């Protein structure tokens, strides 16, 4: 299947190429700067304490400003005829309509009346009907094999008794994804047409993707009301940016010949957009759709905290009573949904890339729309069957299976038999690596670090990058987040190193072994869609709360892009170059290190970039096992409903992400230039 699409990669922004603007290359610059930094760090503390610990008197009360601004938006902001809150409430009501419709189709049935006094007029689609319909969609998209796969995924939901919750989750995904796709498409189109708009949009997209969701949950609740709609809005904020980015990229890569052709035949502007550009960018656009689906599923747990219910709620509730098996089953149900939707959207993406099949010759309804007719038939037949046999409507409880206490027993067994060995490993890493590093980073002077970052920006991308990086780093200090930010950098940094040490060798191994790669893909797909809460609690049982546990969770999630991009980079190496190397008598090791890895380095660095982004996006989860970083700050702000505090900490996370992203992208670009 179309494995060439990254499964969950937020597309990184390419900086505009700036030919000729080469960074200054002076050999003495780095050693001198480093030496100055170390001297300053070691000896300046007694003289200039302010340069080490940011004085609280200099802090900007930005949190208060944001808090006040939200209050104003909430209570006073008005457009004359209606207030800002009216507007957001209207948007919520508009989203609520399709959601109610889908929910009644999949879960509640057609109801009259409200709440518990509602009377069901028509039952929802039965499990048999949904199963048959997804099989039909699968067959339409990718033939029998895909049909079997998606049926198996949905069959899992039925068999393990996850059906009711899964349909609630599916309903919110079914509503969120089209909205995300359309809004992303429109934003991308606008950005493509008006470059100033693009310049304004791209930073906003960066922030939408990197600010932890918990940071904007409170304002979303205030403006959009409590319930599934607010959850859908929060999901959209997180899941929509890749669609906008992909749209911009896809439209830009439409060959100029096609555009010229459109001009020659005299297309109007609208025809040009909808008849020429979008159809020819269709297969890239489908990648964006796939991203929106996957990111929406990533939000299931958080969405359930603000009223979306469904599988996310089941996971949380199961883990609160330490029922590891039940948590895992609900978590795997999310994975099953993700796999089914991912494979379907990928199959459609592939189909979109191929020339359309000839229109069927028949004229009858059945011949023209065989799938639609079949689906309708299924709905009618299962509806009647459901009336006659209750088991056809609701899967009987007695037929369901469960792993029961099996997984709890597995964890207990490991715990009782191997705890001492695991504890020794934990202590060794914690005491020799994590704790010293935390102290080291915490002791660095903020002023020196800001300058060094700016210098790195200057060397890699010139004055503009230097300014961007320097200002963002300075903002973290100015808003009083420096100390927590260093803990964040320490935790994410260590995790990224471990993820790279595990991921890159695995990627090298898998790049040439098709079977291994297929298995590995399954593993990393699961790791990325399984809510981390599911494995976090067993990890706490084995390693206690604290930084080490947090690190394991981050590594488990962030290792995926390290593997994926390494494989991608190695597989893309031109076989002729490898052949030439072999002809020159290189050994296998030499081919790997001297040729392949060198050529694949830009991709591997992009993978590293994504690993950092993934690690940062896990921060909020690590707060749940007792770290003291920016993630914890965001979480505390959420529990105190303090919008300003949460957004300031969230912005700091975003700044760290943007600094890392820009520096690494600039570095990768320089390497690519040098290699070619």
């Amino acid at each position, binding site marked *: 299947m179309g494995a060439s699409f990254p499964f969950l990669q937020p597309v990184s922004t390419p900086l505009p190429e700036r030919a000729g603007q080469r960074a200054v290359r002076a050999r003495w610059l780095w050693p001198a700067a480093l030496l100055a930094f170390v001297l300053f760090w070691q000896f300046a503390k007694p003289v200039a304490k302010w340069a080490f610990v940011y004085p609280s008197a200099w802090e900007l009360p930005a949190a208060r400003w944001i808090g006040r601004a939200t209050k104003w938006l909430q209570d006073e902001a008005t457009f004359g005829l209606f207030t800002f809150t009216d507007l957001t409430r209207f948007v919520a009501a508009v989203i609520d309509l399709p959601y109610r419709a889908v929910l009644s189709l999949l879960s509640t049935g057609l109801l009259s009346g409200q709440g518990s006094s509602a009377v069901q007029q028509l039952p929802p689609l039965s499990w048999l009907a949904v199963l048959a319909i997804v099989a039909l969609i699968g067959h339409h998209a990718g033939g029998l094999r895909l049909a079997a796969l998606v049926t198996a995924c949905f069959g899992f939901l039925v068999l393990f008794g996850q059906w009711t919750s899964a349909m609630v989750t599916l309903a919110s995904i079914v509503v969120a994804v089209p909205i995300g796709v359309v809004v992303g498409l429109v934003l991308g189109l606008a950005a493509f047409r008006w470059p100033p708009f693009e310049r304004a949009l791209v930073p906003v997209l960066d922030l939408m993707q990197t600010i932890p969701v918990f940071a904007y949950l409170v304002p979303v609740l205030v403006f959009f009301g409590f319930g599934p709609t607010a959850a859908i809005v929060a999901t959209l904020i997180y899941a929509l940016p890749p669609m906008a980015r992909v749209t911009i990229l896809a439209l830009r890569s439409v060959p100029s010949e096609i555009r010229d052709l459109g001009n020659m035949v005299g297309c109007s502007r609208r025809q040009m957009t909808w008849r020429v550009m979008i159809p020819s960018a269709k297969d890239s656009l489908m990648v964006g759709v796939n991203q929106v689906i996957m990111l929406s599923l990533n939000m299931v747990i958080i969405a*359930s*905290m603000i009223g979306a219910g469904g599988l996310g709620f089941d996971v949380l509730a199961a*883990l*609160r009573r330490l029922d590891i098996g039940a948590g895992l089953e609900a978590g795997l149900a999310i994975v099953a949904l993700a796999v089914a939707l991912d494979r379907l959207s990928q199959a459609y993406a592939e189909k979109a890339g191929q020339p359309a099949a000839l229109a069927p010759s028949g004229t009858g309804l059945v011949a023209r729309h065989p799938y639609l007719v079949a689906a309708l038939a299924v709905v009618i037949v299962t509806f009647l069957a459901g009336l006659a046999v209750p088991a056809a409507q609701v899967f009987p409880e007695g037929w369901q299976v469960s792993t029961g206490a099996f997984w709890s027993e597995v964890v207990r067994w490991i*715990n009782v038999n191997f705890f001492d060995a695991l504890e020794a490993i934990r202590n060794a890493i914690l005491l020799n690596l994590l704790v010293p590093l935390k102290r080291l980073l915490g002791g660095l002077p903020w002023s020196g670090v800001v300058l060094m970052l700016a210098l790195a920006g200057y060397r890699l991308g010139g004055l503009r990058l230097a300014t961007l990086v320097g200002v963002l780093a300075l903002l973290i200090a100015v808003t009083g987040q420096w100390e927590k930010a260093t803990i964040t950098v320490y935790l994410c940094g260590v995790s990224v190193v471990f993820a790279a040490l595990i991921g890159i060798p695995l990627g090298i191994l898998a790049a040439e072994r098709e079977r291994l790669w297929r298995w590995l893909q399954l593993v990393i797909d699961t790791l990325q869609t399984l809510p981390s809460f599911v494995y976090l*609690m067993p990890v706490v*049982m084995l390693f206690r709360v604290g930084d080490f546990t947090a690190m394991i969770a981050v590594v488990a999630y962030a290792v995926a892009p390290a593997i994926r991009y390494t494989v991608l980079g190695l597989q893309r190496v031109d076989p002729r170059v490898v052949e030439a190397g072999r002809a020159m008598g290189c050994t296998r090791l030499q081919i790997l290190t001297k040729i392949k890895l060198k050529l694949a380095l830009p991709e591997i660095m992009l993978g590293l970039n994504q690993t950092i982004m993934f690690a940062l996006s896990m921060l909020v989860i690590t707060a749940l096992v*007792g*770290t003291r970083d920016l993630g914890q700050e965001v979480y505390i702000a959420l529990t105190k409903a303090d919008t300003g505090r949460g957004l300031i900490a969230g912005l700091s996370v975003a700044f760290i992400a943007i600094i890392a992203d820009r520096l690494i992208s600039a570095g990768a670009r320089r390497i690519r230039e040098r290699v070619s």
Partner: protein
Amino acid sequence: MFKTFRLSQTLAATLCLSAALATTPAFSQESTDPIKLTLHDWTGQLITTEIMGEVLKKAGYSVEYVQADYLAQFAGLESGDLHVAMEMWETTGRDAMDAATATGKVENFGETGMQAKEEWWYPEYMKEKCPGLPNWEALKSEACAEAFSIPETAPKGRYLGGPVTWGGFDDERVEALELPFEVIHAGTDAALFAELESAYQRQAPILLWIYAPHWAPAKYKGEWVEFPPYSKECYEDPAAGLNPDAAYDCGKPFGPIWKVGWAGVKDKWPGAYAAIKAFTVDNDEMGAMITKVDLEGQKISDVVAEWMTANEARWSEWIKK
């Protein structure tokens, strides 16, 4: 046409319903909109809420359950998107509740009758290693601290406190009572009990924050540490208590579990408002129900139904006008 038909049908259904339930008092001018009760992610709260919901249904109200986060829900309660939250713990939710009631949009509906208890807790097998327990003074001895220590904290003992957001003043307590312990904060409640489960399986040392009503004290054998009893002065005035220079030199307060809700409930559903205010259960019956669900694997709806039949006299009193 169709609409009138539907309306009259609903009307007829409502009439039938009220005729069938002879005990149902007819509330006049009450809204027929559903009352939204919030569900959180712990069993006790699910049970409390479902009992309230069932009772309101018996009184003829339409009820809707909405899954919501314990603290994030206040945004919804203030705006009137949500209506009733059945468990707001004095010990963990006080700040958020005060902030919300201060806006005037949220009202405290009174006590549930349950008392939240929170304190340091240890499994019974630790008594052998630290014989002076449950008296808190035993924790002052070096041998005891050593028994509760792990490599990062040694020679100090390790105490696993609740998430930072719960407050609890444990850092201050350790300092004020001069206990040779280090306070480690668990990030979530789930992590707290995961550690307890792990230690209990291995019969390993652990000292942690436990609260009740909860399934843990029923599942694991153990005891609460007995600190000097809490008093308001002890928390506020350094001079009070054992340590003349520090506050928090005593145990944690017991506190009621409150019912809170949207301030508009009173006018929109006066009868329901009265019923919610009248609702009470106590710690023991709640503890028994939690045990049935979490440890014996019964369904919440079955346990609630059982309670409803056993306590009919009680709840019909709540919905009496």
